[in-house]
């Protein structure tokens, strides 16, 4: 009995080691290529470790006038940060409303809200595009940022699940102290929701950071491009200005903020997932 368990655990361990190596190897390869010289990156079979580490590749990425990586980076950060602020704030307000008040038609509203989680963006993007171009918002960041201030269904759902776990007694004691409804939201619900809010912030940051389709529709001039469009342009045959090692540098630079966020918030993030249970 004991032996059988040990064998199965040993087997699991072995499988995990092999699969982890397979999963990690593309990342290893990405980092290694980013530090190679132009001639070394074209070698086949590829070298695992660069003969000499070309840290200048990263410098070149930012100083190259055609790529304008710094501008792309800045644009993406502006859009993502404003999206996060908008999403977290509005989603928290709406989720609180759904969790705390039993207004008439609540179930219907909630059903509608849930069903928009499944609404594919491509199905509604054409009228949205026409709407925003009517408002003269083309080639600005507004179409990418403003909708975030009206809440995101997925995040509202996640936060509502969290608010539902807060005991009613908290609000009762708030009421006795004469706190207004707005005040209870601000001073009772929000301070207790750290992990859930962090989860929402990370989700919306990553979503905005990686989004390609909407920026492609709305941004035309190169100085407005976000990282995803700029990077896509770097490998499209039209521009083809960047060699592979610089492309890998770009991919790494684009991933770093995401990794940093997860690293900082890992504990809270996992707590958030467990708490809301996504069920």
């Amino acid at each position, binding site marked *: 009995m004991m032996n059988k368990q040990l064998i199965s*655990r040993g087997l699991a361990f072995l499988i*995990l080691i092999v*699969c982890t190596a397979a*999963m*990690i190897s*593309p*990342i290893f*390869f*990405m980092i290694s290529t980013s530090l190679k010289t132009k001639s070394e990156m074209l*070698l086949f*079979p*590829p070298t695992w470790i660069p003969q000499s580490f070309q840290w200048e590749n990263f410098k070149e990425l930012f100083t190259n006038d055609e790529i304008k990586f710094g501008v792309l980076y800045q644009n993406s950060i502006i859009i993502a940060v404003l999206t996060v602020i908008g999403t977290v704030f*509005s989603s928290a*307000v*709406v989720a*609180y*409303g759904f969790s*705390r*008040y039993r*207004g*008439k038609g609540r179930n219907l509203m909630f059903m509608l*809200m849930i069903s928009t989680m*499944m*609404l*594919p963006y*491509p*199905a*509604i*993007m*054409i*009228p949205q*595009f*026409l*709407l925003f171009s009517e408002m003269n918002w083309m080639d600005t960041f507004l179409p990418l940022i403003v*909708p975030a*201030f*009206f*809440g995101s*269904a997925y995040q509202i759902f996640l936060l509502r699940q969290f608010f539902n776990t807060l005991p009613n007694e908290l609000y009762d004691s708030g009421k006795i102290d004469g706190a207004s409804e707005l005040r209870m*939201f601000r001073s009772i619900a929000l301070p207790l929701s750290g992990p859930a809010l962090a989860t929402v912030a990370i989700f919306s940051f990553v979503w905005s950071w*990686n989004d*390609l*389709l909407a920026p492609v529709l709305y941004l035309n001039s190169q100085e407005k491009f976000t990282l995803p469009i700029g*990077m*896509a342009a770097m*490998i499209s045959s039209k521009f083809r200005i960047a060699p*592979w090692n610089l*492309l*890998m540098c*770009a*991919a790494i630079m*684009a*991933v770093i903020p*995401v*990794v940093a966020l997860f690293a900082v918030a890992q504990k809270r993030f996992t707590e958030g*997932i*467990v708490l809301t*249970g*996504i*069920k």
Partner: protein
Amino acid sequence: MKLSASGRENFYFYLFIMPWLIGFIIFALYPIAASLFYSFTDYDIISSPKFVGLANYQELFQDELFYKSIWVTFKYTIISVPLTLILSLIFAMLINQKIPAKGFFRTAMYFPSMVSGVSMSLLWFWIFNPQIGFFNYILSWFGVKPQLWFLDEHLALWALIIMSFWGMGAGMLIFLAALQGVPASLLEAAKLDGASRWSTFWNVTFPMISPIFLFQLIMAIIESFQVFTPAYVMTQGGPNYSTRFYVYHLYESAFKNFRLGYASAMAWLLLIAVLIITYIIMKTSNHYVYYEGGKES
């Protein structure tokens, strides 16, 4: 302002959900209705929309590229979604055992999920490079000849499917959290009753995590109906339309060929497809999804 108790509830409820309600009307309800309207018109942005009845739909059903885009999306979904889900569940279960370096495995398996979007496409475009790519190099260890991948119409979609497995870490993390929520007492009881591991999984573990499995399944299918980034970045739908995903076809029809009416018809069919699939999955899920504290009606 004096309000009755229920009046107060109504007032605050609608006050708090107001941002969503306004956004819902402007950014969801109106576009859904408007795209239905546009789908009955011929519209090229420059001149105003001309009503053409069902012509767009008729044309769609005679358009070979439309069928091709459905087939590509269907094939990708039917292979990538179930395999990715099952793999992520298997790895969650492997990591959930009493093994050393759990934290390391969890992080290492999850790490690739952070390389998403265009970064992922850049990386895999390089990995599948026909001349100097890493994938052909690994295959050469097993004596497999170098392949053309994104230049080969029979392999391009498969390359994207392989790439999609790489992102299974996100699902794994959620399953891991779900597995840790299965009460140890239930597993103990199954063990005491002499249940095999296989039957413990099917009768205890899976029912307990089935609502999360269902949620993941629906979201994964909807997401895979909307694949756009790899087609836009790497293949432009080629070679020979072998990676012309539905949404990529929609995008090109609307914003490259400026056939907004035609693309709106596609948008509506996408909406209907998502509705139908979600409905079917929800209906059939009653057989295997277990909700704690009774069935959800």
